[in-house]
């Protein structure tokens, strides 16, 4: 079944009764106009019958009917039809005419019958002949009547067909026009960022859609409220998690700074490594939850170049600690987005590249054909093409990857990227080795 179309639905509801109404109208109009016409034509036949009756001569020898041949010729053929007649005496004897013309059945005055293979209309007239009354049957073929009835039918049906067509057109275009406010409402909703939960301007909406807009606004408000609740929960959870983790990390680092016997040092180093990993995992999960909750409408103009510049110092120090040459090629790249989440996405990309990407990592921002783009390229082992789809999944790590990552970093990047309507490409590095991860933001 095709998608439910309001137009089709309306037409389906409207057209059958409209057609029935028009058909009924046509029948009534036709009947009403055909009857007087039939009566008028019958009256003309009656007149002919009376005229014929008046030509009957009554004498002692009986009834006699004489008509000059020219008159007879004129009578029998009119412009359209042939006319037949039969004159009977009061006693039922043939006087003149066509003896095989049958009288109407019963005591009717007229009937539709056939005569010599033609359909005819027969009228029986009681016509004065002399001092008595003769019966004159007059019949004519139906050419004129048929033509007239067709004209009547056409003049009835044509306007009604036009009315039906007009109704269908009005429905078709009227529905489109009438639904215009809904279309513009849906355009507005489509153009919105998924993070934008501001209410729709109800005052600007047409009255018919106001109920819908009000209901939508109610829903938006509830979603925004639950999103705020979630954000508050996340902030509280972050605080509750991070402070004890900071305790653990600080104390294990202080302990490791002491001179320790080897049997004590090894487990302490494990403890410390696990703490650092847990801390990073907690941060990633919180970020992921934030990116999901994602609906706080903190969308602003952000220049990716400035974003990178703001983080460059931190990243360079991380790179130095790993002995990686971190470089930049930065051009202005304005986007609409949430600076916090974008920063987190970039930090994850850079962290990944520094961790797994070999000795040289480059961060680039640029604007190409109206689309802003950021990319991080490394010269490490790269991501095999077969894995490039899966590395964006949560908790997935390419088999054989060293270290103890959670497999969340790129999933975070993907979530943040898609919440900004941007797309992410995993490509091979420029030098034939390594990996280049590219995020392209929508036009604008």
């Amino acid at each position: 079944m095709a998608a439910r179309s309001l137009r089709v639905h309306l037409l389906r509801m409207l057209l059958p009764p409209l057609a029935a109404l028009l058909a009924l109208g046509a029948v009534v109009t036709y009947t009403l106009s055909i009857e007087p016409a039939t009566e008028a034509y019958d009256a003309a036949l009656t007149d002919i019958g009376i005229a014929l009756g008046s030509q009957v001569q009554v004498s002692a020898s009986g009834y006699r009917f004489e008509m000059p041949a020219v008159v007879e010729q004129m009578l029998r053929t009119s412009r359209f039809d042939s006319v037949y007649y039969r004159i009977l005496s009061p006693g039922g004897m043939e006087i003149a005419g066509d003896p095989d013309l049958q009288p109407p059945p019963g005591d009717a005055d007229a009937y539709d019958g056939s005569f010599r293979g033609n359909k005819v209309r027969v009228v029986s007239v009681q016509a004065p002949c002399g001092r008595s009354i003769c019966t004159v049957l007059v019949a004519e073929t139906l050419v004129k009547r048929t033509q007239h009835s067709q004209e009547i039918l056409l003049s009835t049906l044509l306007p009604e067909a036009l009315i039906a067509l007009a109704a269908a057109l009005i429905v078709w275009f009227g529905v489109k026009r009438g639904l215009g406010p809904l279309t513009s409402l849906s355009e507005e909703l489509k153009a919105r960022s998924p993070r934008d939960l501001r209410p729709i301007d109800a005052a600007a909406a047409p009255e018919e859609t106001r109920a819908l807009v009000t209901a939508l606004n109610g829903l938006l408000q509830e979603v925004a409220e639950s999103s705020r609740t979630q954000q508050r929960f996340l902030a509280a959870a972050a605080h509750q998690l991070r402070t004890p983790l900071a305790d653990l990390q600080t104390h294990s680092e202080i302990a490791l700074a002491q001179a320790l016997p080897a049997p004590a040092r090894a487990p302490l180093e494990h403890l410390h490594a696990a703490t650092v990993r847990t801390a990073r995992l907690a941060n990633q999960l919180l970020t992921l939850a934030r990116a999901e909750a994602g609906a706080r409408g903190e969308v602003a103009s952000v220049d990716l170049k400035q974003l990178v510049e703001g983080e460059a110092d931190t990243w360079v120090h991380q790179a130095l600690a790993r002995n990686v040459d971190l470089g930049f090629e930065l051009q202005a790249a304005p986007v609409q987005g949430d600076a916090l989440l974008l920063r987190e996405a970039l930090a994850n990309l850079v962290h990944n590249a520094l961790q797994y990407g070999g000795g040289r990592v480059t961060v680039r921002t640029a604007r190409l054909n109206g689309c802003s783009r950021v990319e991080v390229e490394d010269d490490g082992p790269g991501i095999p093409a077969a894995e490039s789809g899966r590395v964006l999944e949560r908790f997935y790590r390419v088999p054989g990857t060293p270290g103890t990552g959670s497999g969340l970093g790129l999933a975070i990047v993907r979530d943040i990227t898609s919440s900004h309507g941007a797309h992410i490409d995993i490509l091979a590095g420029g030098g034939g080795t390594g990996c280049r991860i590219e995020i392209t933001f929508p036009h604008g």
Partner: protein
Amino acid sequence: MRLLIVEDDAPLASGLRRMLEAEGHAVDVAARGEEAMAAAAAERFDLVILDIGLPQMDGFEVLRRLRAAAPERGAPTPVLVLTARDAVEDRVHGLDLGADDYMVKPFATPELAARVRALLRRSQSHGGPRMAHGPLALDTLARRATLRGEPLELAAREWAVLEVLLARVEKIVSKEAIIQAVAGWDEELSPNAIEVYVSRLRAKLEPAGIRIRTVRGFGYMLEEFAPG
């Protein structure tokens, strides 16, 4: 140096105290904002490490009051903000209120120690006419530089570049920032010119173990001086 830690989480506060004391600082701990204000009013600290998530008077409020009280006490005390909440709002708010640096919990203590050192160094050299970096000393009033106690000849532009880098030791400084600091009103400097000045500086400073690192496509960083 005299440091104040404002942190309500006792285990963390004691850990930080031990760590910073091991670095040779004198450390006081305040568990609440009110305590911190009282301590800051009674004594002059060289650095405050301030947790944002304090009960009642939170870290932002402490920071605001510290900064409001600052003018009569000369150069402002550097404040390193610690936060367990999501970074950006707290950072932006904290930096707006006049914090000098921030760290998100949990953090690596060596990094915290490094940032404390950097902040202390900056606040010591900042505003003062004398800046020192390992064997290098700059007297900005007399415009005299010495390396290992020997006079060091620096052209005006070289001096200006070195001054910018020295004011931000261990921080990367973009070429644009250097150009802005070095170029006069009426002249335009190309990034290539900056490269020339930096390579001249390197030639003069590297024999003494002072290294200027190039950050590809971005700028330069004067590395922390490590003797030996």
